[in-house]
């Protein structure tokens, strides 16, 4: 489990300091899909980058199963990062490497395996994300959804305990988004990973949000899950989640008829 306690972050800008996160407290659970949601500019990406250690918070603690990343030296952070997989918004695949090369990369750097063992592991990950047959393709030859799946395969190659996903559905059509969501959900449950997904995709919230942290203007606005999100009387959250007429109608209908949300 990852625990965030009293986390604050300020950026120094030309016009003066700008505080982005204010006293954030949240728990992100093992074997669950934890969603961090919020409007663009609400501070969710900054929060995730603080949690993974790409930014240093001004104050607060970030505990990975009790180990505080903010107090770790470079060597300890390096060790911890071997337990972390990350899926970036733009996939961040290495252009000069094939799909196989990308998935093999963390294994070559840290796997401590023989060549054939590494290939087997990489092939397993590629098969798991349904990219079989694309092993020798370069990222530029893949569609957006395939790039995301390749990035997921790379992220899980080292069997991480924690998987971070920064807006995994951005730039994807709704159907492909659902495929990616289901894949992330399946992988989370299959391998017992603590998955943290940073998103503003409402389909993801309704579909796979087992633990949802809503960030509003740098503050924690609400914490709950996909079943609770239908019955919350939180204006900020409702304005964000039910921003469209369609979602408002769905909510109204389901509240009136007592429907519970289902998976995709």
């Amino acid at each position, binding site marked *: 489990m990852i625990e965030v306690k009293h986390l604050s972050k300020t950026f120094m800008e030309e016009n003066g300091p700008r505080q982005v996160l204010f006293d954030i407290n949240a728990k992100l659970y093992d074997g669950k899909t934890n969603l961090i949601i919020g409007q663009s500019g609400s501070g969710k990406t900054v929060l995730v980058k603080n949690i*993974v250690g*790409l930014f240093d918070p001004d104050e607060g603690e970030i505990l990975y199963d009790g180990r505080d990343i903010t107090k770790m030296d470079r060597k300890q*952070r*390096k*060790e*911890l*990062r*071997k337990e*972390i997989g*990350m899926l*970036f*918004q*733009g996939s*961040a*695949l*290495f*252009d000069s490497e094939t799909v196989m090369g990308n998935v093999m*990369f*963390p294994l*070559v*750097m*840290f796997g401590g395996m023989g060549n054939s063992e590494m290939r087997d592991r990489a092939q397993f990950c590629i098969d798991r994300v349904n990219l079989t047959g694309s092993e020798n393709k370069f990222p530029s030859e893949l569609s957006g959804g395939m790039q995301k799946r390749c990035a997921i395969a790379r992220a899980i190659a080292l069997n991480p305990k924690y998987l*971070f996903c920064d807006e995994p559905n951005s730039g994807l059509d709704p159907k492909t988004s659902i495929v990616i969501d289901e894949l992330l959900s399946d992988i989370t449950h299959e391998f017992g990973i603590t998955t943290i997904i940073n998103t503003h995709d409402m389909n993801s919230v309704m579909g796979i949000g087992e633990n949802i942290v809503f960030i509003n203007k740098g503050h924690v606005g609400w914490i709950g899950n996909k079943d609770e999100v239908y019955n919350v009387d939180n204006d900020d959250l409702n304005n964000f989640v039910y921003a469209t007429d369609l979602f408002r109608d769905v909510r109204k209908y389901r509240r009136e008829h007592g429907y519970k949300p289902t998976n995709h």
Partner: protein
Amino acid sequence: MLLIKMLDKFGDYCMFMWRVIAIPDKWKVFFKRYTDEIGKLGIDSIPLIIIVSLFIGSLCTILIKLNISNPLLPRYTVGLTTREIILLEFSSTILCLILSGKIGSNIASEIGTMRATEQIDALDIMGINSANFLAMPKILALITILPFLVVICMATSLFGGWLICIITGIVEPDTYLFGIQSLFIEWYVWFALIKSLVFAFLMSTIACYYGYSVQGGSVEVGKASTDTVVVSNIMILVADVILTLLLL
């Protein structure tokens, strides 16, 4: 204000170099990248060097012949002067100024694009020292290969001068050959090679720094590429003056 900005940049550069100078995470991967970079930065530059050197060598010979037409000066002066120009300045300084355009912008745009597309963040997340992983092979590869490129440049330029003598007959080829062998000072060759090592370090580290420091998208990558060439050229010329004062 400008001074503070320059000092700020220099401090940032030093901190970047502090991260670069470290033991690689995986030696096998490092050597593969190192040899790849030697090919990409060095071997791939040979055609450009040959073309430029041939023309500069022949131009030097023509211009010297046109400007030294004093009957009191021996005819082999053309070959001798061409050699001195090539050994002292062209083969190292001018060549590096040309290469900083090709290699420097290549390195800055490659690393800059990796920054803009979060590939460097991906390396950091994996626990890899991204500065060392990306920059060290490029820096060492350029330091290794540039002296060889300088030697190729020297030979090709002198050959270019000889070729123009044969084609145009402005100087007898034998006289030219006699000239390039006369009053030869071996130290000038070492001087050029030492300069090339310093220039290789400056070129590669400045390019890596500007690429690594990119914040933003394609516009910033383009700016980093341009800044790399400008700053590299200035630093090469400053280093050239200092080294010339120290070594000659």
